[in-house]
């Protein structure tokens, strides 16, 4: 996705700098902005291509891997119980590193530490599948990310990034997603950027993708250098967005245009 310089000019001209955050009662998922056909694609399991990754994830969950020759299921049993609500509180604080980890990183930490296997690359089919399978166990659950007080400084950093103008277009995420969420851009609804559906199937990608992939696309969109997958800045942004969406309902695997 690319945006033209004229947006920046218009936003500056309109003087929309650091406007108010969205009140609780007005928060809306990206789902609400979609056309009925796209909603229908998300609503029904057999129509939702994201479910194909969920199925793959379920198979991987049971597959033994690594030097430990253990499957996720060997330690976590039935994901329907053990992973229920887990995705709804990620990114979460990790004691070992003293930093927040997103769900993908958490899965990879089990890959390396528990299974003694190599970490799965970001956006690989396997990592997306496992993430989708785990996130699916939180479908319908309210987002709880950010409750842990140890996360506070990281949420603050993520918020700073979100509010900060950047890139050639000199735009902040907030300029679009807080100040102009009810407008359209290139025919697409801007939306409030609530990460309720990730990992999700984007028609544009013709594939499932992670929240980091979506954020990187928005960052390139404002012509800023996108952080690498797994960069602390991206995790902090994810963390801020998830905590900003607290009590909204998890939809993964979502579908978006």
């Amino acid at each position, binding site marked *: *996705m*690319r*945006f*033209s*310089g*004229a*947006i920046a*000019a*218009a*936003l500056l*001209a*309109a003087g*929309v700098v650091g406007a108010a955050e969205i009140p609780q009662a007005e928060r809306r998922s990206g789902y609400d902005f*979609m*056309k*009925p*056909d*796209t909603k*229908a*694609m998300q609503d029904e399991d057999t129509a939702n291509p994201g479910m194909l990754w969920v199925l793959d994830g379920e198979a991987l969950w049971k597959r033994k891997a690594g030097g430990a020759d253990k499957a996720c299921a060997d330690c976590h049993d039935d994901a329907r119980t053990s992973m229920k609500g887990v995705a709804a509180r990620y990114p979460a604080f990790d004691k070992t590193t003293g930093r927040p980890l997103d769900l993908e990183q958490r899965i990879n930490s089990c890959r390396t530490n528990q299974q003694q296997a190599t970490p799965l690359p970001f956006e690989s089919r396997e990592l997306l599948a496992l993430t989708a399978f785990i996130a699916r166990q939180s479908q319908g659950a309210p987002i709880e990310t950010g409750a842990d007080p140890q996360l506070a400084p990281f949420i603050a950093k993520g918020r700073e990034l979100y509010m900060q103008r950047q890139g050639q277009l000199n735009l902040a995420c907030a300029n679009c997603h807080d*100040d*102009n969420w009810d*407008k*359209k*851009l*290139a*025919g*697409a609804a*801007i939306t409030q950027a609530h990460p309720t559906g990730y990992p999700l199937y984007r*028609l*544009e990608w*013709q594939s499932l993708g992670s929240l980091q992939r979506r954020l990187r696309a928005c960052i390139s*969109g404002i*012509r800023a250098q996108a952080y690498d997958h797994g960069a602390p800045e991206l995790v902090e942004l994810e963390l801020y967005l998830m905590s900003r969406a607290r009590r909204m309902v998890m939809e993964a695997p979502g579908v978006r*245009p």
Partner: protein
Amino acid sequence: MQQPTNSSRRKFLGLAGGAAALGALPVVIIRPAEATPAMLAAAIQNVTGGAAVRTGKVKLEIPPLVENGNTVPMTVTVAHPMAPEDHVRSIHVFNEKNPQPNIANFHLGPHNGRAQVSTRIRLADSQKIVAIAKLSDGSFWSASVDVVVTLAACTEEVI
């Protein structure tokens, strides 16, 4: 997805009062069908063997506004009995501008009970979509729509 090469660059939708935006975000609008170019005609000829194709019986549904040309829901329904002695044999869907004129062929029979199929198709550019049904009596029926895929915003500025 690929950028449509020759699509008309339409006026963009404003953001915050007159802003421009860009990105490969096609908007699809349906308007009544126009003439049939040669490739499409040849592909149809392949199916009909030159038999007359009548307009009617076939309903071709594509949402008036789709959010992304990569995945456009499409439903074809043929209003015709599905009895052993009189039924729909097949439904053929074509497009005009993709390198290849065929989209799909659906082979049916009386056991289907209802001649209705759905799938999702790619529409990277404005073009005509034609659906033709072949009946057990050898007759052909069709419906067509012109689908306009626009880049909804300016794409002048590309890095």
